[in-house]
C-alpha cells in the first residue's frame, strides 16, 4: 500500500518514493550486477557446473603433484619396465620403468602452465594491438589490419610450425608460438569493440572534456569488451593445451625426459602393442582437461548471451 503522507500545504499525496526506500532498507529488493546475473545463469547450466568442477579437480590434482605422486616422475627402474596398471603403479610403467601416474600428474603442470601463459600472451598482445590500431585509425590502422588479415590467410598449423622451425623445438618455443598465433584473433575483437565505442556519446564527450586518451581507453572501452575476451580466452585455453600436447607429440615441443602429456603420447606410440597404457592415460588427461574447459566456455557463452536475458 502506498504511503499516504501530507506535504506542507495540506494535500495528501501518495509517497511512492519513501515506500521504495523503505523496501530497499530491508534489503528485500537488491540490485544485481551484470556479473551476478551471469553467474546465476551459469549456475543453472548443469554441464557448465560439471565443467567447472572437473577443471577444479584437475587443477587441484596437478597442483598437488608433489604430494599425490607416488614416485619421482623421472625415476628409472629397470625392474619394472612396461608393467600394466597394478597396485603399486596405478597407471602402469613406461619403457624405462617410470611411473605413469606420477608422470601424468607432474606433466599436467607443464601442459596447463603453457596453455594458460600462451592465452595470456595472446590476450595481452591482441588487446594492446587492437586497442592501438582501432584508436589511432587511419593509415597505421589499415596497415596493421592488412597484416592481421594475412595471418588469417595462413592455416594456423603452418604458422606454428614456421615459428618452431625458427626458434627450435622446445616447450618455450611452443609457448611463444601459440601465444603469437593467437594475437590477431584478439586484436580483431578488440579493434571492433574500439571502433564501436568510439562512436558512442560517452567517449565523444570524454574527449571533449579533455580526458586523456589512455584514460578513455581503460575506463570506457576496455570494460565493454571484457566479456567476449573472457569467453574466447577460456576456449582458447583449451585449444592451447591441445596444441601444446600436439606439438610435443610431434617432437616439436617438450623434449624428453619432460613428462609433458603430448611427449608421453609420442613415446607411447612406439609401444602401442606392448604397453598401451603408456598412451591411454596421458591422452585421457588431455581430453578431460580440454573437455572441462570447453564446457566452461560454452557455459560462459550461454550465461552472457543477450538472447538469454
Amino acid at each position, binding site marked *: 500500500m502506498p504511503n499516504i503522507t501530507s506535504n506542507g500545504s495540506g494535500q495528501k499525496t501518495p509517497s511512492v518514493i519513501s515506500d521504495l526506500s523503505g523496501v530497499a532498507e530491508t534489503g528485500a529488493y537488491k540490485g544485481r550486477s551484470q556479473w551476478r546475473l551471469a553467474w546465476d545463469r551459469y549456475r543453472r547450466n548443469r554441464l557448465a557446473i560439471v565443467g567447472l568442477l572437473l577443471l577444479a579437480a584437475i587443477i587441484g590434482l596437478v597442483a598437488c603433484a608433489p604430494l599425490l605422486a607416488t614416485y619421482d616422475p623421472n625415476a628409472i627402474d629397470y625392474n619394472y619396465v612396461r608393467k600394466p596398471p597394478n597396485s603399486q603403479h596405478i597407471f602402469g610403467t613406461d619403457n624405462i620403468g617410470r611411473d605413469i601416474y606420477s608422470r601424468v600428474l607432474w606433466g599436467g603442470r607443464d601442459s596447463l602452465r603453457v596453455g594458460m601463459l600462451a592465452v595470456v600472451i595472446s590476450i595481452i598482445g591482441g588487446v594492446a594491438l587492437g586497442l592501438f590500431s582501432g584508436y589511432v585509425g587511419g593509415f597505421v590502422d589499415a596497415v596493421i589490419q592488412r597484416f592481421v*588479415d594475412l595471418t588469417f*590467410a*595462413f592455416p594456423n598449423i603452418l604458422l606454428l610450425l614456421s615459428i618452431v622451425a*625458427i626458434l627450435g623445438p622446445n616447450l618455450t618455443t611452443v609457448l611463444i608460438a601459440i601465444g603469437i598465433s593467437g594475437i590477431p584473433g584478439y586484436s580483431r575483437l578488440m579493434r571492433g569493440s574500439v571502433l564501436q565505442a568510439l562512436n558512442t556519446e560517452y567517449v565523444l564527450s570524454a574527449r571533449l572534456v579533455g580526458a586523456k586518451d589512455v584514460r578513455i581507453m581503460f575506463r570506457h572501452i576496455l570494460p565493454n569488451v571484457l566479456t567476449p575476451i573472457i569467453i574466447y580466452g577460456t576456449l582458447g585455453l583449451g585449444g592451447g593445451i591441445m596444441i601444446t600436447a600436439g606439438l610435443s607429440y610431434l617432437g616439436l615441443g617438450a623434449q624428453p625426459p619432460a613428462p609433458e602429456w603430448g611427449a608421453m603420447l609420442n613415446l607411447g606410440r612406439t609401444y602401442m602393442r606392448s604397453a598401451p597404457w603408456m598412451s591411454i592415460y596421458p591422452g585421457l588427461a588431455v581430453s578431460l582437461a580440454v*573437455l572441462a*574447459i570447453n564446457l566452461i566456455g*560454452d557455459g560462459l557463452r550461454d550465461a552472457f548471451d543477450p538472447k538469454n536475458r
Partner: protein
Amino acid sequence: MFQFLLRRLFGLVLVLLGISFLVFAISKVTPGDPVKMMLGNRATPNDIARLRLQLHLDDPLLVQYTKYMWGVLHGDLGRSYRGQTPVLQEILLRVPASIELGTAAFLFALLVGLPAGLIAARNHNGLLDGLVMLFAQVAISVPEFWLAIVIVIVFGVQLGWIPITGGVGLKSLIAPAFCLGIGPAAVLARLTRSSVLEVLQEDYVRTARAKGLRNVLINYRHIMRNALIPVVTFLGLLFAGLIGGAVFIEAVFARPGLGRFAILAINARDMPQVQGIVMFGAALYVLMNLLVDILYSVIDPRIRIT
C-alpha cells in the same frame, strides 16, 4: 559479378605476395648455415665460398627475394638441402596422399555432422538434442592424435580389424579418415544446429508457415537454403584445412602426406623444403578461400553487391 571476381583475384595476388614475403623472411631468420649443412664438416672455405656464390646467398636480400619469386612463378621452389631434389617435385609426390585423406575425412564430416546438426535442431531442447551436443562436445575436446592411438590400440592391436600402419587402398583410409573427420563433424553439427535454430526465428519462416505453404518441402527451401550459408563457408575452409593440416593423423598412421613431410623437413632444418611446403599450403588455403567466396556469392546474392 565480374568486378567482384576481379577484386577478389587482386586480393588473392596480394595475399600470396605477402605470404611469400613472410615465408622468405622466415627462412632467412632461421639460425643455421645452409651451406655448411649441405657440404658437411669437411668442406674447405673455398668450397663454401663457391657454393654461396652459386646459390646467390651473398646477394642483397631483395635480390634474393626477387630471384626466389621469379623461380616460384616458373614453378621452381628451390632445391632441398639434403639430396638436392627439387622441392616442388617432392611436394607433388606427397599431395595425392594428402588429398586422399583430406577428401575422405571431409566426406565423413559432412555425412555425419550435417544430419546430426539437423536432428539436434529438430529436437531442440529434447533428449536427442542434448545427446548429440554432448557427443559433439566430447568429440571436439578429444585430441585427434590420441583418438587415433586409441583406435589403433583397440581395433588394430586387440581386435585386428584394421591394418595398422602405412598401406594403400580404401581399407587403410577408414581409421585415419574417422579420426581426422570426427572433430570437424562435431563442429559442423554444432554450427548447423545453431544456424538452423537462428533461421527458424526469422520472420520469413513465420510468414511461410502463416501462408500455410503446402508442405515441409517448401519450408526446406526457405529454411535450409538460408541456414546452410554459414555451413557452406565452414565446409570450404574445412576442406582446405584438412588437406594441409592432417599432420598428426599422418604421423600416427604413417601416411606419406604433406603434413608428415613438413615435420620431417623441420626436424632436419631443411629450410627450402619448409619454405616450399608453407608456400604451397598457404597458397592452396588462399585459393580455397577464394573458391568459397565465389560459391558464397553464388548462393547469397546479397554478397555480390558489397
